């Protein structure tokens, strides 16, 4: 399991140490649809160091997803500055951005977004298809990622045959398979019951312990307190940003 054995220091070697992994300064996003302007993110500033586990909280419509899209280079900001690993979106060509998402970022979505009628193994392999990794290594990497989320016994199941919690664990394995620096998770527990939600958070917590940076969106305080830091948003603005004093350990359902 290459992902679990990696240590914090190894990540630090890979990245630009002059900048935090994520640097946000006065970041603003305004959607424009048919001349109607929707300010979704206003003047946000913060940074996330490598190895952090930050939770973003806030009511629905407060701009959490908008912020995450900007952080993942999935969308372009209106004004302000955002640097990932020291570089802005304009430092990259579209193909380089695709490569960056493929190699350094992992995404987990609320809706799982697994391919239908496709096995767990093939779903987890998906990022490898676009990675330039040799094809003969795909199977091993995908299996290792699946094992790290505890789903080896479901490897040949189709995604539709899985429970919600299992689906989200497949999505996490998919996010992990290219060994990214950071995992962005947008309400990964939003469609899950408390128990499976906890199992998902526990995996994230464990990944963080292994040295991976995690940005987690949730609106459940209980889950957010599993992170090391909580950023609270309201109406597109960052309302507060504080470390978690009394950090929770996700319930011990999962580790054996």
């Amino acid at each position: 399991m290459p992902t679990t054995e990696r240590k914090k220091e190894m990540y630090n070697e890979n990245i630009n140490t002059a900048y935090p992994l994520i640097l946000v300064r006065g970041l603003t996003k305004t959607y424009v649809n048919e001349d109607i302007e929707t300010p979704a993110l206003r003047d946000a500033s913060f940074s996330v160091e490598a190895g952090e586990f930050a939770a973003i909280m806030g009511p629905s419509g407060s701009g959490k997803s908008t912020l995450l899209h900007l952080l993942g280079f999935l969308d372009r900001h209106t004004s302000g500055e955002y640097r990932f690993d020291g570089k802005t979106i304009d430092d990259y060509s579209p193909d380089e951005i695709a490569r960056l998402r493929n190699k350094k970022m992992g995404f987990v979505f609320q809706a799982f977004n697994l391919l239908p009628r496709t096995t767990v193994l093939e779903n987890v392999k998906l990022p490898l298809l676009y990675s330039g990794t040799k094809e003969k290594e795909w199977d091993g990497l995908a299996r290792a990622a699946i094992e790290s989320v505890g789903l080896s016994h479901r490897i040949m199941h189709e995604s539709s045959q899985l429970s919600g919690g299992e689906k989200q664990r497949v999505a996490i394995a998919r996010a992990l398979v290219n060994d990214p620096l950071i995992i962005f998770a947008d309400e990964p527990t939003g469609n899950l019951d408390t128990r499976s939600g906890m199992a998902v958070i526990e995996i994230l917590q464990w990944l963080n312990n292994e040295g991976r940076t995690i940005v987690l969106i949730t609106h459940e305080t209980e889950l957010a307190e599993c992170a090391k830091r909580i950023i609270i948003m309201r109406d597109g603005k960052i309302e507060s940003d504080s470390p978690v004093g009394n950090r929770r350990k996700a319930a011990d359902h999962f580790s054996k």
Partner: protein
Amino acid sequence: MTLKYSLKTALKGIQVNKSRASLTILGIVIGVTAIMLVMALGEGAHQLILGQIQGLGSKTIFIAPGRQPTGPSDFAQVFSDALKERDLALLERKTNVPNATRVLPIVFGGETILYGSETHRATIFGSSEPIAAVFDVSPAEGVFFTDDDVRGRAEVAVIGSKVKKELFGDSDAVGEKVKIKGRNFKVIGVLSPKGQASLFDFDDAAFIPYTAAQQYIFGIKYFHRFVVEADSEDAVPQTVLDIEATLRESHNITGTQKNDFFMETQTDMIERLGVVTNVLTLFLGSVAAISLIVGGIGIMNIMLVSVTERTREIGLRKAVGATNKDILYQFLLEAMALTATGGAIGIALGAVLSFITAIVLSNVIAMEWKFTFPISAALLGVGVSAAVGLVFGLYPARQASRKSPIEALRYE
């Protein structure tokens, strides 16, 4: 992404909606089937007529009066009286046309032949004795007429097997008298059946000395055709020149004046046939190609629907690292896989249908219609259908590749 995986992804995309995919490719299947059929039938017809022309012999030169018809309506000159008895004598002279081994005069026309109460309409050929050798016909019973019969304007006839059957049934024909244009002709021979192996149906014909035919049947003093046989295939071009010179002199045609006769060799006919069948095949082929375009539009339509339906899949692929090009190729390959599958089915279907048609045609027209698998049409079918996929898949694929990845994240 590797080509193997791109193809796998494309095929998977198709499999997800099999019934829609099969309906979608129907247009392509029909188009390619039609192209295959047209080309196979065109080739079959070409081979058939080619066989008939070759049945006339590669050393034979046909001389007809008038000008070479330039189009199907250009019949005006055909029945002119340019070819005379005098010309026949000149052509037979070795000093004029040294390579001519045989020179045949021919008069012909459809006439009714009577025997007792039986009547039958057949083609009457008036010629000289060597016609039997030139056209490779021989009497199964009796004899062919001779030069003496020609000189003596003998009222004798050698009839084809079909004429014999129609007039005489199973009873003997040789020695009997038949009536043509009110004159009695004695049947001296019955030809062995030949089948329609050449342009003329010799089974449904009667041969008589040209002298008798000119005098008693057609009432003319000229000829409809001369047929000259050269001593070898290589001598044909020179013989054509010799004939032209001889006839021009005989007809007092000088300088830039046009000939009042024209010649055709087997090579000419094959060339002309090639032009005709090519034009015909091309024309019918393009009609079939139109259905391919219609099929292509169907593909484009369904691909656009598919792109919309799979917005989230596209967004997800982009989120995990697919470039715009990766997405473009995925959908392009999917469209091309669809049309290529349609093309392959069309080729198989077209081959089967043209094979069946060949069998049916052989029976209906009682000719040997050869089935040839049109490899060129098959290749064309595959190529064209893949091209259709490329052309009509490009627009939907571009739409797909331009989708924003955040659409996948938006939860519906």
